[in-house]
């Protein structure tokens, strides 16, 4: 029986000709990633492993981004532990404030992941790199520690759901709406333990940033990874960002899938996930009662890339944020920040009444830079809206694309871009 794209990458990294769903394998890793929350635990675990140094200093990436710039003394101690470890082990890809960014925007931008790679990261949104035709998945700190020491990780080979995409997005619809639509359809455990493999004529119409957003939120459907085929756009992106050699894997024609789901991209509408699960989706035009809001966040590993801010800017330019609404803009990397600055976006955002932050995961996980009080509501381009995710246990998060977020900031309620 043929293999899925994911299974082919796993087989190649396990040194075997073929694998099938359910097989347990040890596979070689091309990159092991951690941040300032998960790396301290991993560094402590590494001390208990007989080999307490990294297997390859070029294949470990450490990105303090969650509570960085340091939000309090304890966070500062954690960042310091990561910094000292990076220094002791001479880690090539350690990114200090000033050159760092939100990890899953940063690694592709720095060319550290390319097609065909196998990457683990101690962060659940490590699945983002499936957009590049790589297998990447989130793990915990113990896996990270063992990965750093041995260059290997154990995997249960997943089966897959195939998403066959046709058509193209209508204006105002983007990758966020596609993945929210899917999560709304299959649920937050709809792809549990499985690969989500995106194929079809519609893939070509998705920008790389759309694909990063879609792969990023595969975990929100319970997926092990979310992967796209490699096409001209992928190759152009990799040539622009990386010197690393890449390998293109394709699913076999006779690969088997647990389920095949057809989606016509032109059928999709701007979509919002209501509290407190990403599966609680509604299209914006179906929201009948006004949902008044207190805060808007545009940023994160999901939607903090240049094209996201361009979309937000198109809606916000020349308009002003509603009185009483706090608009927080967070470019995901220093390069994106600079690009937004050079394009004039940041000046316009500030003149619209928004505030612009240095790169950080900050508010997405209720860390800092935009915590919600009891009863407050936030429209956010981030990825999770669990109870207490962005602050008080009685606050609410609504997930949306950047244009909906911008329009909502202007009107002070959840709104579609064509309402402003």
């Amino acid at each position, binding site marked *: 029986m043929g293999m899925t794209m994911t299974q082919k990458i796993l087989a190649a990294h396990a040194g075997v000709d073929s694998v099938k769903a359910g097989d347990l394998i040890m596979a070689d890793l091309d990159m092991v990633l951690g941040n300032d*929350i998960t790396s301290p635990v991993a560094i402590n675990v590494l001390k208990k492993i007989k080999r307490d140094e990294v297997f390859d200093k070029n294949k470990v990436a450490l990105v303090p981004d969650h509570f960085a710039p340091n939000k309090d003394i304890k966070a500062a101690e954690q960042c310091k532990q990561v910094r000292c470890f990076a220094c002791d082990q001479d880690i090539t890809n350690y990114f200090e404030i000033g050159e760092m960014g939100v990890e899953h925007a940063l690694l592709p931008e720095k060319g550290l992941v390319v097609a065909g790679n196998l990457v683990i990261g101690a962060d*659940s949104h*490590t699945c983002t790199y499936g957009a590049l035709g790589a297998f990447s998945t989130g793990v*915990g700190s113990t896996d990270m520690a063992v990965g750093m020491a041995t260059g290997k990780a154990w995997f249960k080979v997943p089966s897959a759901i195939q998403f066959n995409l046709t058509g193209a997005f209508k204006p105002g619809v983007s990758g966020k709406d596609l993945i929210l639509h899917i999560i709304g359809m299959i649920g937050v455990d709809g792809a549990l333990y499985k690969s989500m493999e995106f194929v079809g004529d519609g893939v070509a119409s998705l920008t790389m940033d759309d694909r990063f957003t879609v792969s990023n939120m595969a975990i929100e459907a319970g997926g092990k990874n979310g992967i796209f085929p490699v096409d001209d756009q992928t190759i152009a992106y990799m040539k622009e960002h990386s010197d690393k050699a890449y390998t293109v894997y394709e699913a076999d024609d006779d690969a088997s899938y647990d389920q095949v789901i057809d989606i016509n991209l032109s059928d999709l509408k701007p979509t919002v996930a209501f509290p407190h699960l990403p599966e609680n989706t509604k299209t914006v035009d179906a929201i009948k009662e006004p949902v008044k809001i207190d805060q808007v966040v545009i940023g994160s590993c999901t939607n903090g890339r240049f094209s996201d801010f361009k979309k937000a800017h198109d809606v916000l330019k020349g308009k002003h944020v509603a009185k009483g609404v706090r608009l927080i803009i967070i470019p995901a990397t220093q390069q994106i920040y600079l690009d937004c600055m050079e394009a004039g976006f940041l000046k316009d955002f500030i003149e619209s009444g928004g505030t612009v932050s240095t790169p950080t995961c900050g508010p997405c996980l*209720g860390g800092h830079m935009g915590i919600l009080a009891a009863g407050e509501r936030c429209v956010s381009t981030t990825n999770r809206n669990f109870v*207490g995710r962005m602050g008080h246990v009685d606050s609410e998060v609504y997930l949306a694309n950047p244009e909906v977020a911008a329009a909502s900031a202007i009107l002070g309620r959840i709104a579609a871009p064509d309402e402003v």
Partner: protein
Amino acid sequence: MNAKGKVFRYGDNVDTDVIIPARYLNTSDPLELAEHCMEDIDKEFVNNVHKGDIIVADDNFGCGSSREHAPIAIKASGVSCVIANSFARIFYRNAINIGLPILECPEAVNTIESGDEVEVDFDSGKITDVTKNQTFQGQAFPEFMQELISAGGLVNYINKTL
């Protein structure tokens, strides 16, 4: 190896943000994390949990973030075992890697109620609701995972190979 304790019963999609809210992730000290375990879903959990107690939940337990702080907090709070219909995949591997016993058993989940006294035999996967006098068979782990579990987690397992 056996576990016996009182059951804390939860529903679907217990996420890692409620197991250990991110505002406490500026530490990785297990006992400090345990002080806030389940805080955003059950404020009384930390006051009522005793060594050996068992968490029972419905679908997709541990969904969300990859934070190993979640199973670490549960383990450090004294919980001996988590039984659920299904586990989110990162939580599943984290629990096995750090040696927190977990079992998938929809039949048991269906029957067991909050406060029941439950006994688990990890070698056989047998779950007994002592309060209701009913027995269930949890799903056996694949051989490789049994080896990980019996080694006491991934680090001990890997150390044997190095």
